[in-house]
Structure formats: structure tokens, C-alpha cells
């Protein structure tokens, strides 16, 4: 069987036609992923035992004539910041090298309840902080499309396993663009749902008011199906939304005729490059589908990065205080007193970017600076969210770039943290507002590097977002 060409529906067909069993597929997918992994370093851990157990459960249900679930037998990669019972979860950090969670994230429980087969844990920037996957303590991931380039970050491994074809779909997490940007760099679909749409229970916390779990896939339909399976209220995450979950794959068949699509002018100023050209071509495709294209403005866009890096680092400094050498596997050998044990364990365990963000967060929250930085940033966040609400009074959806440039070379930006932060310019605003947003591939540069287009809609309008993405894909837009 040709693993890289599989989709959720072709796996289902293979199982019902008895072309292969779920166990055979899991075995073959694991063998293929292990053989391919040295090229990209996309997986950190393979979960053979758990994959085979899940596959056996699917085969048993099929044999008994029971419904095996919408993800039956589908090989899935899972970002290594999502807790998996009995399977090592490193968060890309040396500090958690030996950490084996005693419980599953809700998204993992739901994935397996729907028949999904987790084959391994995907590499990522340490604690999901980064835009290139070069902050992993286990080495960078290489972009499967161009091995000398970064896959994007922080969910670089999750994007790479889907682009490389070593998983059919994967789960990542997004705080300021960590799903959409790697999806754009690797040429796959990546979805950040509405804040609260997917439970964060078991997602190792980075910035709690901004963290999302979301899917990666090669087709829009597969992300829609995976999101439908994992979304919904969870009493273990008080911020998870009570809204009813729609069947996103069923909702996306309707044509786009008559929809109003907004182009925020702040996102296109100065985008006179191949990325801009590919996105303009994508917009033409939508126009041909009968969409009306309207210019809109999101006036506070230019303040988003500043507000984001205050809010996210403040939350980081609080969330990462739990890694103190007591509960989570590693402890400094050099400490006589409790306080030195905390300080040395953290100093030795965290990588450079994690420390940089903890420091920035501790500073902006410190006495005398809290109002000037943190409260100010939260006020700006209100303004950015209001910008979107006003735009959505005029249009149904927004189209923007995902990244100002395609995948860059490994090492190219690693010594300039500020430049790395600024590369998140187009993804951060949607994260701050908590609205659904996704990357769809829209062709490649002359060098063959993927370019991604972002679709953004109102809170809980994932159905419309998937519909636009799917109709765009069906009309040949991915290779526009």
C-alpha cells in the first residue's frame, strides 16, 4: 500500500473492502515512518504498542459489525506537547526527556475513541516556543519539501509527518501561528479552531489564553473530519466551549457564490513578492467561484506582535514555574537547598528560547511594570479583537497571507530572536482574537517552496472556513 497517498476515506475503504486490516496498516505505517524519519527528524518517539492496540480494537469492531469510528485505522502523528498516557512526552525539552504522562489529553481520548491510531510523537520547538523548530532539544526538523530548510514552528514535526506522508493526519498546537505557519512552509492544511473549541486538558500549557489544539492534513476534508472528532465541551477544561460541534466535513459542500471575502489592507502592504503573487492568484480562484472581494481594514494590526509577546511570555513565566525539579523527572545534581534546587534544575533544563521568554514574562509581570506592559497589552488585545468583529459586520471571511516569506534555511534566523518574532506578523492577530483560522496551500514559488493562504472567520464559524477551503481545493486552488 502507498502510505503517503492515503486519506481518511481511502483508509476506510481499504478496511471495509478488506484490502488491509487496521493492524496491517499500523505495522506498515510504523515501518515506513521509521525508515523515512532520519531524513527529517520529525518523530521523536514511536508508539508501536499503543498503535497496535488501537488497531486491534478497530479490527475487532469491524469483525463484530460495529461502527469503528470516523478515524478508523488512520495513522496519526501527535505533537509532543500533548500528553499521552504511557508514551513519553518531551515537549521538545531536555527537562522532560524521561517524562511519561500518567493520563491522556482529552483530544487523544477522543482521537482513539473515533478509531484513530497514534503511531508516534512529533518533534516541536521546546514547549511550543518558536517559529522554525530549531528550538527543540532533540535537533531541528528538516522540511520534507526542501531538506536544507526549516519546516516552520512550533508544530514543525506535525507538519512534516503529513507533508512527508508518514502519517495521514496529525495534531499540533497553535499559540501564535504554530499550526498555520508550519503548514504553509510544508504545503499542507493546518487548522487553528476557535479558542475553546478543542479541550486543552492534557496539552502542556504554554500560554493558556492563546493555546489551541488543531489538525494537520493533506486534504481539507481530513482536517474537517479530525476536528469534528476531537472538538467539544470537556468538563476538565473550564474554557472549553459549550457550543454544539458541527459535522464540518458535511457542511463544506455548498458553493461559494455570493460570499463576501475581505482583504485586510494592512496584510498586503509591502507584500510585493512571490508570496503576494501566489495569494493574489488564490484570490482570483475565489472570485471565479462567485465570491465578492472587498477591501477592509484591521487598524490595530501593527500593534499585535508587541501585545502578543507581552501576553504570551507573561503566561509562559507562570505556566512553566511548575517545572521545578520536584515532579517532572529531571533535577539538578548541584543543589544543597530547596531554592537552589529549583533555580539550578530550571537553569540547566530549559533551553535558550524558553529561558528568554520566562525572563521577559517575569519582567513584564514584575512590580511597577505590570500595568505598563501586561494590562496595556490586554487592552490592545481588546482593540484587535474589536477590529475583527467590525470587519465581520461587512464580510463573511478574511483572506490573508500566513507568512511574509516561504520556508527559510536552517540557521538563517536562529541568532536573531526579534526577527524570528516578527515573522509571526500575520498569524498572531487571529490568535489574540481567538477566531478560527487555517492555512491552505496556494501554489509554490519558482524554487518550489510552498506558499500558504490564511482563511479567517468569526468565532465558531469553522463550517464556513472549511467550506471556503474545500471549494478552493476542489477548483484546483492548492496548485494555483
Amino acid at each position: 500500500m502507498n502510505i503517503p497517498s492515503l486519506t481518511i476515506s481511502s483508509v476506510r475503504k481499504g478496511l471495509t473492502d478488506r484490502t488491509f486490516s487496521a493492524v496491517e496498516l499500523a505495522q506498515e505505517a510504523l515501518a515506513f515512518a521509521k525508515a523515512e524519519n532520519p531524513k527529517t527528524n520529525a518523530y521523536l518517539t514511536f508508539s508501536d504498542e499503543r498503535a497496535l492496540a488501537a488497531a486491534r480494537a478497530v479490527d475487532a469492531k469491524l469483525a463484530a459489525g460495529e461502527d469503528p469510528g470516523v478515524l478508523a485505522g488512520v495513522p496519526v502523528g501527535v505533537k509532543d506537547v500533548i500528553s499521552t498516557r504511557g508514551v513519553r512526552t518531551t515537549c521538545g525539552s531536555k527537562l522532560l526527556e524521561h517524562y511519561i504522562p500518567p493520563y491522556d489529553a482529552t483530544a487523544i481520548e477522543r482521537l482513539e475513541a473515533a478509531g484513530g491510531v497514534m503511531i508516534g510523537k512529533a518533534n516541536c520547538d521546546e514547549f511550543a516556543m518558536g517559529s522554525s523548530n530549531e528550538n527543540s532539544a532533540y535537533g531541528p526538523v528538516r522540511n520534507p519539501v526542501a531538506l536544507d530548510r526549516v519546516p516552520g514552528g512550533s508544530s514543525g514535526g506535525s507538519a512534516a509527518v503529513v507533508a512527508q506522508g508518514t502519517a495521514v493526519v496529525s495534531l499540533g498546537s497553535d499559540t501564535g501561528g504554530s499550526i498555520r505557519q508550519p503548514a504553509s512552509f510544508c504545503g499542507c492544511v493546518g487548522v487553528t479552531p476557535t479558542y475553546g473549541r478543542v479541550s486543552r486538558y492534557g496539552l502542556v500549557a504554554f500560554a493558556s489564553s492563546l493555546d489551541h489544539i488543531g489538525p494537520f492534513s493533506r486534504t481539507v476534508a481530513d482536517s474537517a473530519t479530525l476536528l469534528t472528532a476531537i472538538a467539544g465541551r470537556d468538563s476538565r477544561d473550564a474554557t472549553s466551549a459549550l457550543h454544539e460541534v458541527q459535522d464540518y466535513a458535511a457542511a463544506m459542500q455548498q458553493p461559494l457564490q455570493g460570499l463576501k471575502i475581505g482583504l485586510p489592507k494592512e496584510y498586503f502592504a509591502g507584500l510585493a513578492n512571490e508570496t503576494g503573487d501566489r495569494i493574489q492568484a488564490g484570490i482570483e480562484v475565489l472570485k471565479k467561484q462567485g465570491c465578492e472581494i472587498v477591501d477592509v481594514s484591521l487598524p490595530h494590526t501593527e500593534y499585535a506582535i508587541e501585545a502578543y509577546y507581552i501576553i504570551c511570555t507573561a503566561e509562559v513565566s507562570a505556566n512553566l514555574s511548575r517545572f521545578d525539579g520536584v515532579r517532572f523527572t529531571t533535577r539538578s545534581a548541584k543543589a544543597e537547598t530547596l531554592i537552589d534546587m529549583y533555580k539550578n534544575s530550571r537553569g540547566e533544563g530549559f533551553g535558550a528560547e524558553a529561558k528568554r521568554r520566562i525572563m521577559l514574562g517575569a519582567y513584564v509581570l514584575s512590580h511597577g511594570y505590570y500595568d505598563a506592559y501586561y494590562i496595556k497589552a490586554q487592552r490592545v488585545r481588546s482593540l484587535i479583537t474589536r477590529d475583527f468583529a467590525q470587519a465581520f459586520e461587512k464580510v463573511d471571511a478574511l483572506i490573508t497571507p500566513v507568512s511574509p516569506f516561504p520556508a527559510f534555511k536552517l540557521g538563517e534566523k536562529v541568532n536573531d530572536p526579534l526577527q524570528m518574532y516578527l515573522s509571526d506578523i500575520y498569524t498572531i492577530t487571529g490568535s489574540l482574537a481567538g477566531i478560527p483560522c487555517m492555512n491552505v496551500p496556494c501554489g509554490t514559488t519558482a524554487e518550489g517552496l510552498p506558499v500558504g493562504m490564511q482563511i479567517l472567520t468569526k468565532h465558531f464559524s469553522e463550517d464556513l472556513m472549511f467550506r471556503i477551503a474545500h471549494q478552493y481545493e476542489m477548483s484546483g486552488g492548492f496548485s494555483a
Partner: protein
Amino acid sequence: MKLTEEQVRYVAGLANLTLTEAEIHQYAHDLSDILTHIDKLNELNTDGVEPMAQVLFAAEETATLREDEPRPCLTNAEALANALVSGQGYYKVPRVIER
């Protein structure tokens, strides 16, 4: 906004981080750079704008409450399984109180 190495040491103390001299030097530079950029927010008048502490939660305040009934939880052994040093059902840490 420029951060001195002394301020970096103070913040590292707040954050419970042991940093090397090289790191202190590096972070004074990096954080100054980032904070200078962040100063841009001062251009913007935000008087009268509510700080946004939460994304949205369109439900009654009581929507997330549940009956206070015991539910299954981690066992003592599971909770301790990832600790490097434990014993007698507890986490073990270096001495806290000076004699």
C-alpha cells in the same frame, strides 16, 4: 527600554533561574531589543478600553460548575512515578529550613 545586567539578575531571581554570566550578558541584549520594540505600544491611546483577560465564553457564570462528588484520580504511585526522588509516598526535596 534598556535592561541592565543587574536588572537581568534581579528578574532571573524572580523567575527562579540560575543563569551563567554569558547568558546574563546575552539576555540583557536580547530583552533590551525586544522591550525597545514593545515600547511601540505607548503610541496607542487605550484609555477606556477594557483589558481582555479571556477570549470569550458565552454562557452563564455557573455553566462550568458541577456537583461536588468524588471522581477517580491519579493514584499515589502514578502521581509520584515521574519524580526523580521520592519515598514513603512523598516527593523528596533538599532541606528547606536551616537548623
